[in-house]
């Protein structure tokens, strides 16, 4: 399963090389053209077999950009202590509550490192409740001196969780499903039959630090519409007050209508939901207002690009161990493939 390799690969924003290599190996034989742009995005083109015209230019075949981001959240070394500890800051959105007790891989050598906190035995009364700020934490690689730490993990060294991928049965557990599961869906799309339009696949960089890769990828590919593939928040743990679970595991792909980064194109939402209903593919509408995806950059590229996001629900994203349902994954591949097969110039021509 490519999801396993993608999940275990390390690629914090700005350092996506290992993921890029995996992606290139997986898609190279299945596309007509592939290149790496100035920021490190992988841009692959799978030409269409049909004559679907672009609604903007009848001389041109319809172009669809499908994006999934390769980067993951992590930490970066910003200082070294006299006793050899590394001081770090977050790259992307890190929940500080998760850091005490983690095992990390540090730097290009994938050196193991850990984060510990003051032992429970030494806590003062008010400290048991307090979350240590990232600025107060230190990564310990076993170095004994400042000089040793500087040599082994220079300023700017990246680190992230060292989690192994695990199959739990109907679900799998691992790190970085946000958004390696999106990458896996996109790889599956590229490995299948061509569509009637030109499929521009962008495996983007730096989503977690502000949708940076997607914005230049969308500019370069100049698509007629865009679709971002994601792993998104599932919140189905028991709660004190009942409320929306954002998304739920096992209930199918989640279609975004609006999040913090964009309002989805109605026509594309309609295409997805009607396809799901026609083919009896389970789907859910993601609770509006939560999260942001590459669509947030794509939809405002050049003169504007109708965009939508489809996501595989994941419990515990941005944590060392997320969980997703393999059925949701398969249904996401199927829903996207079937919906895109039904896409016509008319879908986009009318409001």
């Amino acid at each position, binding site marked *: 399963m490519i999801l396993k390799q993608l999940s275990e690969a390390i690629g914090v924003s700005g350092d996506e090389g290992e993921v890029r290599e995996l992606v290139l190996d997986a898609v190279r034989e299945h596309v007509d053209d592939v290149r790496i742009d100035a920021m490190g995005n992988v841009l692959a083109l799978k030409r269409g077999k049909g004559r679907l015209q672009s609604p903007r230019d009848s001389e041109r075949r319809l172009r669809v950009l499908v994006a999934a981001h390769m980067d993951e959240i992590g930490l970066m070394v910003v200082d070294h202590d006299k006793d050899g500890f590394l001081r770090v800051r977050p790259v992307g959105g890190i929940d500080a509550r998760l850091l005490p007790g983690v095992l990390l891989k540090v730097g290009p050598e994938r050196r*193991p490192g850990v984060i510990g906190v003051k032992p429970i035995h030494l806590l003062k009364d008010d400290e048991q409740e307090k979350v240590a700020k990232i600025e107060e934490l230190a990564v310990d690689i076993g170095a004994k001196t400042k000089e040793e730490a500087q040599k082994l993990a220079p300023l700017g060294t990246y680190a992230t969780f060292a989690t192994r991928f695990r199959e739990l049965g109907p679900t799998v557990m691992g790190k970085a499903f946000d958004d390696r599961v999106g990458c896996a869906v996109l790889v599956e799309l590229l490995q299948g039959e061509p569509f009637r339009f030109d499929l521009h696949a962008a495996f983007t960089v730096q989503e977690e630090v502000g949708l940076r890769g997607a914005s230049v990828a969308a500019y370069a590919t100049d698509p007629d519409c865009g679709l971002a593939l994601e792993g998104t928040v599932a919140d189905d743990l028991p709660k004190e007050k009942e409320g929306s679970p954002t998304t739920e595991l096992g209930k199918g792909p989640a279609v975004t209508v609006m999040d913090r980064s964009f309002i989805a194109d109605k026509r594309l939402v309609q295409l997805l939901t009607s396809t799901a209903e026609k083919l009896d593919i389970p789907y859910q509408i993601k609770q509006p207002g939560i999260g942001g995806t590459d669509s947030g950059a794509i939809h405002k590229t050049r003169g504007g690009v109708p965009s939508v996001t489809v996501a595989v629900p994941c419990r515990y994203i941005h944590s060392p161990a997320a969980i997703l349902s393999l059925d949701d994954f398969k249904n996401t591949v199927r829903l996207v493939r079937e919906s895109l097969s039904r896409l016509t110039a008319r879908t986009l021509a009318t409001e």
Partner: protein
Amino acid sequence: MLRHLSEAIGLSGHEAPAREWLRKTWEPFVDELRQDSLGSLIGLKRANSPEASGRPSPKLMIAAHIDEIGLIVSGIDKEFLRIQPVGGSDNRILLGNEVTVHGKRDLPGVVATRPPHVVPKEERDKVVPWDQLFVDVGLPAGQVEKLVKVGDLISTRRELTTLENRRVAGKALDDRACVAVLTLALERLVDVRHEWDVLAVATAQEETGIKGAMTAAYGVAPDLGVALDVTFGNQPGIPEAETYPLGEGPAIAVGPNFHPGLVARLREVAEAEEIPFQVEAIPGRSGTDAWAIQVTREGVPTALVSVPCRYMHQPVEMLDVADVERAARLLAALIAGLEVDFLESLGLSRAPRGGDGIGRQG
């Protein structure tokens, strides 16, 4: 060995998997092995020096606890498990931890709470309370119901990792590192003459109140006791006075819990063998097996040797392997050098004979 011991499972009161591994490991090094009713493993290595023949040999008990902290299933809510601590588990470090749920079969899982994206900021700034922590094994509710019940144990799943400078990090090094110390010491004693009976004890239920050491010491009725445990390693955010640097040798404790004569002997041995050591002053309760051993029966002169360890009760407990080796050398040298009349030289007499068999020849 450290890897085996760290990764072995043995929560307080349920030490069997770790103990059974240890039983096999100790077998070649000891003359007798038994298990007491609380679950401690007791190995006897008889005095074997010519001076030992004739009258019964005095008994040295060395204790390292084999239990580890963990979690227990306290409720099942849909497919999610509610949890409570076994021993001093720390809810500050649980979130995101991989665990094994010991249900009808072992189930991998993760400790989770609701995502930060959907909870108010005040909640995110607080440590997640126990009633909002869950274990997710990734199975549907129907299957969870069949496989897991309230009261099932949950252990931390973490491989031992080697870092720079022969430092290792993993779970349960408190106190399996000292079980390793004790085992290495037994190994060193294979061809060594000693005048004292050595009672190696892997104690149970230390983390839930030093129970194993209490009953094992009663059963053994030792003349001298040495407890082995971890102590706080140097780490950011803790005053140096409260910590002991990694890699500078084991710590020998002083204070009311420890007999000055035995402490002095340990220091002499370390100096004679050129083993680096540190001195740890403990003004009161040591919170170790030494606390129980000292007041066993009519009282036992007791000492504590500790391996400095960072991040105690976290799955990243870290220590320097050299300190483990040094503690083992110190212990083996102590045993090899104990004169049959060491107690008398301290102005003490032997413990009256008693107890329940193993380790007793009189």
